[in-house]
């Protein structure tokens, strides 16, 4: 009896050790990645990275100004399309739609959020690039907006669901029209959560590369024309990473550091907004 007890304990300790090892292994990739990124990216990090344009292959130096500004433009237009549509759909689902329609819409959002981003890129190619007969920054934005919409709908709807019904009932009791209840009560109460979701959605599309390949297409020159091909940061990193030039690899790491700082910054910002909101609720 006691011997079997000892055995059971030993077996338990060994297996728990395996679990702890797994937990350790699970965080190794993140730290290996960040370590390598900082080691390689810090060397490339300089004002020139932000202010200069890329040089022809083989020449040392240059920066990623066109890609950084291009990313801001493409993601900006995508946000202007994706966020309003996502918000509107989520408001409709939680304020006006019948339960069956709302759950059907929710199901399609869940499925859409699982569609590979490259397929959304193909859709934007078929819808925008084909009829226009050329690649454009706008088509890239359309692809990113498609990727973003279901994500925004899901997070917004989750947040609207947390708003107590008593608040809305109070609005009805005061005779406030439904649109004011939706905009000034429900959306207002859920605003911090919705903002967090929007920031996360933006940081997700900012790193998308696959749909950019055949929509925004990339551009070695400076361009801010939505109707022309444009360079984006992730796409430029990809092009430079698979190139044979040492100096382009250096620029790729510099660009990667910018992108990660932006995304981690946005993630931390969203966590801070939630934390701050929680604190102000509690006090």
């Amino acid at each position: 009896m006691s011997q079997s007890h000892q055995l059971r304990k030993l077996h338990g300790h060994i297996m728990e050790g395996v679990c702890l090892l797994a937990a350790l292994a699970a965080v190794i990739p993140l730290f290996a990645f960040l370590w390598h990124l900082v080691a390689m990216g810090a060397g490339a990090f300089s004002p020139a990275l932000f202010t200069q344009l890329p040089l022809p292959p083989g020449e040392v130096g240059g920066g990623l100004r066109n890609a950084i500004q291009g990313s801001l433009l493409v993601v900006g237009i995508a946000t202007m399309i994706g966020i309003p549509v996502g918000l509107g759909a989520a408001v409709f689902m939680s304020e006006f739609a019948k339960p069956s329609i709302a759950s059907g819409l929710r199901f399609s959002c869940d499925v859409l959020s699982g569609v590979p981003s490259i397929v959304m890129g193909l859709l934007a190619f078929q819808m925008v690039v084909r009829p226009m007969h050329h690649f454009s920054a706008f088509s890239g934005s359309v692809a990113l907006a498609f990727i973003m919409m279901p994500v925004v709908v899901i997070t917004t709807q989750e947040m609207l669901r947390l708003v107590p019904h008593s608040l809305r009932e109070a609005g009805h009791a005061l005779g406030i029209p439904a649109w004011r209840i939706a905009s000034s009560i429900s959306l207002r109460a859920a605003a911090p959560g919705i903002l967090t979701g929007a920031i996360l959605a933006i940081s997700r599309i900012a790193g998308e590369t696959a749909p950019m390949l055949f929509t925004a297409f990339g551009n070695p020159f400076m361009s801010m024309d939505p109707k022309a091909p444009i360079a984006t940061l992730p796409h430029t990193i990809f092009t430079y990473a698979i190139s044979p030039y040492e100096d382009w690899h250096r620029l790729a790491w510099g660009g990667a550091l910018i992108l990660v700082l932006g995304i981690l910054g946005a993630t931390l910002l969203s966590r801070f907004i939630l934390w701050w909101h929680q604190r102000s609720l509690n006090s």
Partner: protein
Amino acid sequence: MDAPNAATRERTQAKLARMPFPEDTQAPSPWVAPPAPPEEIRLTAPASEPRPPHVDPFGRSTGRSADRIFRLATGACAAMIAGLIVLVVVFMVSGSMPAFKDHGLGALLSPAWDPTNQKYGALTFLFGTAYTSLIGMAIALPLGVLTAVALVEILPKGLAKALSLAVELLAAIPSVLLGLWGIFELVPLVRKFEIYIYRSPLGLKHLPIFSGSPLGVGFLAAGLLLAIMALPFILSVSREVLLQVPKSQREAAYALGATRWQAIRRFILPYSWKGIFGASLLGLARVLGETMAVTMVIGNTPQIKASLFASGYTLASVIANEFTEAPSDLAISALISLGLILLLLSVALNAAARIMLIYLNHSQGAPQVAK
């Protein structure tokens, strides 16, 4: 998901309808309109004027038409979301029609991919996608579940929180950056491992899965990157599932004299398997369409080999590599049809997993997994 709001509104309106209006009761009320102007000022006053529309005492709009506009606008947004699914299916099917007409469905099972000679078979890429996804899931699933067990059952709360934050950050890293890291750090490591196997005195290189030359790039490197990308997803869902196991389940185990591991192994994990299975289907759907990281480390060679060390090609990476360099409209159409396959696979897996999880939630009130 439900619209209790609509129900609430109906209830409120019903109540209001039962309530007497001030005009009906003739009671003095601050809400009645200001007294009518003297007769002589009235220019057009029909004898039997219908009741004037309700005027808000503070001059605010009653918002009935604004309501209708608002509802229409948000409804249009919702219709766009629903329409997106239709759009993606319609455009992908119409785009791949020329290739299907030319090659028929038999192309799915043909291994030949030769755009210059107008041969477009999908089998190589289906194999590559399936093989890399399986390697990725085979690594990420046990690792994710064991880590979730460590986080929920073993580690102290603070440490567990820090660890899960770290893994969540891993999920935020774009695929192209993991690919960059893969090219410059993971592939050399994999190559070292492959050389080690190649030189090992046990003759491991004669095993079919270790055969071939040690290039570094190939199925193994791609599978490892996919595992890294699937891990945060599987971990977070498994964690949710484990947290939902009722406390009584644990207490029962300890009351029977189980050690902590026995409680985990025989009482907690069996309760969670179904939820974890659904989660891994979702993870698989996500991994199937991963493009950039895989493209950067798989070697991009259309071939079917069982060896982990061989280079390969996946559905997503052939689209990424060849789309802008396609020699003909037929080639573009063939690539779009590969995208259609990806779309159908991911939609089918997603829908199956969601329906399964919904069914599970209904049947036992257990794991709520919809993230």
